[in-house]
């Protein structure tokens, strides 16, 4: 395993002058990808039972029974992840070179991006809890950096802070979960703790369940599941490549990876797994409904991401590991593609992201349109695009589980239906219809430039210096690099399903088998259900597209009528089920109130008033008393002397028997 180390270190160089940074960074990530592939190949060289290879770099914190080492674990799961991560990252780096070309923070951008890739690789390669947590937090930090990349935008910094804090909450869950597990297994190493999980938790399955639920909290925070999802839509404040890479393809799926990685624990704690399933299903529904009514292009895609991850979480929690990871992979392809295409559109709009303003870009940007459609079809689960196979695989497995899981099964298909609607609502509104002025301008061969740069969210006026987007930021599909990246992903989105076609190819399943060899969940879905699922999936997808076509293309007024008729529901969806407000009300305000109370009241009254003031007041009062007694009257002095004498005499008399 000599390669693992170089993989981690290889991406660490940062801070280079001029535009070369972009190429260097891309090269580094590309190199990582090459190494990842080499790792994959060399792993295939090992025997099937011998494909879990930990290697320790150095002792990180080995003390007093804690055995945190810098251990890298290379097994099929992690190799799959590094391949996906490094591969998608390489493409997005390429895209970014073009996209960020004119930004004043170009070098910084790539530094952050590289740091992110490093962190992500660290996360997936981690061989123990500590390293996992480190990677976990690092990707959170990188995500924060990149969300707040335009740091003079207050909206961006606020979104970054929100994302980071919720991520830290996730970290906390992860750490606490680790504690619960460590408490009984006494090791932080993955393999050892998995090995011991059945023996160590003898009478304390409650601790295990608690630990797993806390791990889930970490996963939810990172993967934007209910109720910790509110950061993800706001995270769209970051540059679009960031949204593509972090908030669609890689980081947000870390939760899925986590559950897959921890599967021995979750299998031992079925209650926790159930929680994961239910939350996943709830998320995919809620996100789908919100996605229906949002008007911000990127936010719609963001909610779709949430929804898709809901599938994955549901899948891996239900024991459909390979299926979940399969969806993870295909999702990475098509969602990155969608974001890139969206970036292209937004570029044409000079930064404006509102669907209300867009229309008719089909002619102006045919390549983008093509990519968007491919991505949309994959997302909607239309055969034979990749999303079709992966999504159905998950639902099939869930369905096989039987019992109340049927409800989840149904929810999954409802979600798929919603997905198709909002995806094509987006496509239809942006690309079809009368071309908007920007589209017309582009058709005539030149890109729209905003005269006055503003923050699209608030309308505040901005300059184009560091900390704000650059002057001519967005190069709508005009750069070859962008086309290369988008094209590659489009191809992958189409054919990605090939690795796991039901009854045909089981490459992915077989590849991952060593990792999940110890899984106790064995399901043999019936062919009938399989066929039913495939048909149903295709059907709801097509139905959704049809409805979208009807509502937004054929009868453009329908949407408004529906809105009017379903006012309460629309309002609920538009306000994202009031999650932000809920969190604000339940957490932020009390905390702020507590802080203000502390600062304005407690500090003054108790800390300074009672403790300090009380003591000094007492001393001062004493001082006043003593000095007041010092009247200067000689006779008082004598009087006190005599009085003291009397008292003393009394005391001594009492002493005598």
């Amino acid at each position: 395993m000599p390669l693992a180390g170089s993989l981690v270190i290889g991406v660490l160089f940062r801070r280079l002058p001029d535009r070369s940074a972009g190429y260097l960074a891309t090269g580094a990530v590309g190199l990582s990808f090459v190494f990842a592939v080499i790792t994959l190949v060399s792993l295939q060289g090992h025997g099937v039972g011998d494909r879990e290879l930990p290697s320790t770099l150095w002792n990180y914190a080995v003390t007093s029974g804690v055995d945190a080492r810098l251990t890298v674990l290379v097994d099929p799961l992690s190799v799959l992840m590094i391949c996906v991560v490094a591969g998608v990252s390489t493409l997005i780096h390429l895209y970014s070179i073009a996209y960020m070309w004119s930004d004043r923070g170009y070098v910084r951008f790539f530094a952050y991006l590289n740091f992110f890739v490093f962190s992500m690789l660290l996360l997936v390669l981690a061989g123990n809890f500590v390293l996992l947590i480190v990677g976990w937090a690092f990707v959170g930090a990188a995500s924060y950096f990149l969300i707040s990349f335009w740091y003079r935008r207050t909206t961006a910094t606020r979104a970054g802070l929100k994302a980071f804090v919720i991520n830290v909450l996730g970290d906390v869950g992860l750490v606490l979960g680790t504690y619960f597990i460590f408490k009984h297994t006494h090791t932080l190493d993955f393999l050892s703790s998995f090995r011991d999980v059945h023996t160590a938790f003898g009478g304390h399955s409650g601790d295990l369940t608690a630990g797993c639920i806390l791990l889930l909290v970490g996963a939810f925070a990172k993967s934007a599941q209910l109720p910790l999802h509110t950061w993800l839509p706001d995270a769209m404040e970051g540059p679009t490549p960031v949204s593509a890479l972090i908030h669609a393809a890689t980081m947000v799926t870390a939760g899925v990876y986590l559950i897959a990685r921890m599967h021995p624990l979750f299998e031992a704690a079925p209650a926790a797994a159930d929680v994961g399933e239910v939350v996943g299903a709830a998320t995919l529904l809620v996100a789908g409904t919100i996605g229906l009514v949002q008007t911000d292009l990127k936010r719609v895609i963001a909610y779709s991401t949430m929804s898709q991850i809901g599938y994955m979480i549901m899948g891996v929690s239900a024991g459909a590991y390979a299926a979940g990871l399969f969806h993870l992979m295909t999702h990475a392809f098509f969602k990155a593609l969608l974001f890139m295409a969206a970036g292209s559109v937004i570029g044409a709009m000079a930064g404006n992201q509102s669907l209300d303003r867009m229309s008719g870009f089909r002619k102006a940007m045919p390549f983008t349109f093509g990519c968007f459609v491919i991505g949309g079809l994959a997302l909607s689960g239309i055969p034979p695009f990749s999303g079709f196979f992966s999504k159905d695989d998950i639902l099939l497995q869930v369905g096989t589980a039987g019992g109340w899981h049927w409800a989840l099964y149904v929810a999954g298909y409802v979600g798929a239906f919603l997905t198709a609607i909002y995806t094509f609502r987006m496509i239809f509104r942006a690309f079809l219809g009368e071309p908007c002025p920007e589209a017309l301008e582009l058709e005539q061969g030149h890109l729209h430039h905003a005269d006055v740069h503003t923050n699209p969210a608030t309308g505040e006026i901005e300059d184009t210096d560091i900390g704000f987007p650059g002057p001519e930021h967005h190069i709508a599909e005009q750069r070859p690099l962008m086309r290369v990246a988008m094209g590659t992903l489009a191809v992958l989105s189409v054919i990605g399903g090939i690795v796991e076609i039901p009854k045909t190819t089981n490459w992915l399943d077989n590849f991952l088998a060593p990792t999940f060899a110890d899984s106790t969940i064995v399901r043999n879905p019936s062919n009938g259900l399989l066929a039913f699922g495939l048909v149903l999936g295709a059907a709801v997808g097509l139905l959704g597209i049809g409805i979208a076509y009807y509502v937004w293309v054929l009868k453009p007024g329908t949407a408004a009528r529906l809105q009017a008729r379903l006012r309460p529901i629309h309002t609920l969806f538009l306000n994202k089920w009031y999650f932000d407000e809920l969190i604000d009300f339940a957490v932020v305000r009390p905390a702020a109130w507590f802080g203000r109370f502390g600062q304005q009241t407690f500090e003054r009254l108790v800390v300074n008033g009672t403790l300090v003031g009380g003591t000094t007041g007492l001393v001062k009062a004493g001082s006043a008393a003593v000095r007041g007694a010092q009247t200067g009257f000689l006779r008082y002095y004598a009087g006190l002397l005599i009085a003291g004498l009397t008292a003393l005499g009394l005391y001594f008399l009492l002493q005598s028997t």
Partner: protein
Amino acid sequence: MLSVLIWLPLATALAGALAGSLTGARGRTGLAVLVGALGSLGLAVALIVGYDGHTGQLQHVTDIVWIASLGIHYKLGVDGLNLFLVGLATLLFAVALVAANLREWEKPHLFYFHLGLAESAVLGALLAQDLALFVAFFDLMLIPFYFLTGIWGGEDRVRATTKLVIYTLVGSLLMLAAAIATAVLTAHDSGNALSFVFSDLRAAPLPVGSQDWIFLCFAAAFLVKMPAFPLHGWMPDGYRAMPIEVLMVFSGVLSKVGAYGFLRIVLPLFPGASAHFQTVMLVFGLASILYGSAMAFTQTNVRLIAGYSSVAQLGFITMGIFSLTPQGAQGALLQMINHGLVVAPLFFIILLLSARAGGSEDIREMGGIAMRAPILATLFLVVALATLAIPGSGNFAGEFLILLGVFSTKLVFAVVAFAGVVMAAVYSLRMYIRSMHNRTGPDVESRELRLIDGLVLAPFIAVILLFALYPQLELHRAEKSVTATVAGARAIAEPGTPQVAGGPLTALAAFQRSGVSIRRSNGGWTVSAPAAAGGVAPGGLATTANEVTVTVK
């Protein structure tokens, strides 16, 4: 060697100040003291490099009778507990002196004299292996800060410094009484000659009744010094008034001496009381965390944000120590070092920020400073992330161990303490964002830091990164000493529980060293420990020890 380490700064300060005032070249004093501080730093590094982590014994011991009539020795020594704190102190003072030399001071010879005296006193307190010597240095180190704040401080400095000194000395003086009581009562009980040397005092623990009030006195001293909620009343005023260069060392080192005192004195000497008051102390720690965090994210003065964050951080440290587990104590020790490494550059950055924000220290008047100062922004970012203990930083390693320790003894406390972790993220980033990011403030002039400023920050960043990558550097060297330190109190707090996490061999070694196992009457403890040792193969899992113990019982 240790004596040289301690007295070098004072000697150079004295020489520099005298020569300075005689020849009129008073400005040179700073350089002289800097040389002394660098010398100490060099010695400290040599100590760290040369330290043998395989024994928990004192090394480089100097032992001279100081006051024979009182049994007070001038005894110095390093072990795992103070090794890195000494390094931290020398580093912070050296860097603070560099920072101070960048400015012109009124009466420079006096200023640097006090700084030199402060360094010597702090180092003395850290290295002292005699209770009375410790107390003497502990009290003494406050005095230079009285002058440093009072003469060179900011607004309302005299009142602030007076409050600071009186507040903290109340605790210290109580500790003085308690220290003497410890030695006297120990001598009474054991029949030995009066001695203040730690090892002598450890050999004959006090009865529980006297331990309790003595413990409270010590706790008062240390909690005030740290400062812990609600005894932090001196902190806001003091921090506001202190010159930043002084504040760097004050916040970075002095507060640690308080926490160090718990480890060095309270746990080994008063194990019974430590176990008795464990919950109380944990509540103190927890309250500090929550309150400090909440305050930190409502303050607008950057100094106070840093100050209250220190309150919270020291709350963590307190909790780690009073988890009475080796992990918790290890983490606390690591966290002390990390916090010192983080808070000092933070204050220096505050100095730079305020220079760029028209002299204001209010985050509402800052913003957008990062624009023309990417390096400053990056360094600040590193520091801010370390402050919030992002996993992967040394601070995280510390916090992880602390909370693990607390978790394994008092689960609920650990869970609630995590709120502090989240809040740390809020206030650290809030400070970073409001100052460096967001729209440029009205009086803000963004400019890059000077090379020399970078030189001040560079050592910190380097060491922060070093500890981020390799905390084991510290943990390994401290392990033996820390384990021995908490063993006594732990055995009393949780009788019958072996040192689960420490593994049977560590636990046994610790128990044998501390001699606690003999005193515990909990049915066969003395029997169980050897059984565990014998029954478990080297490297065997701690669970085995657990079982062995249980069966024997």
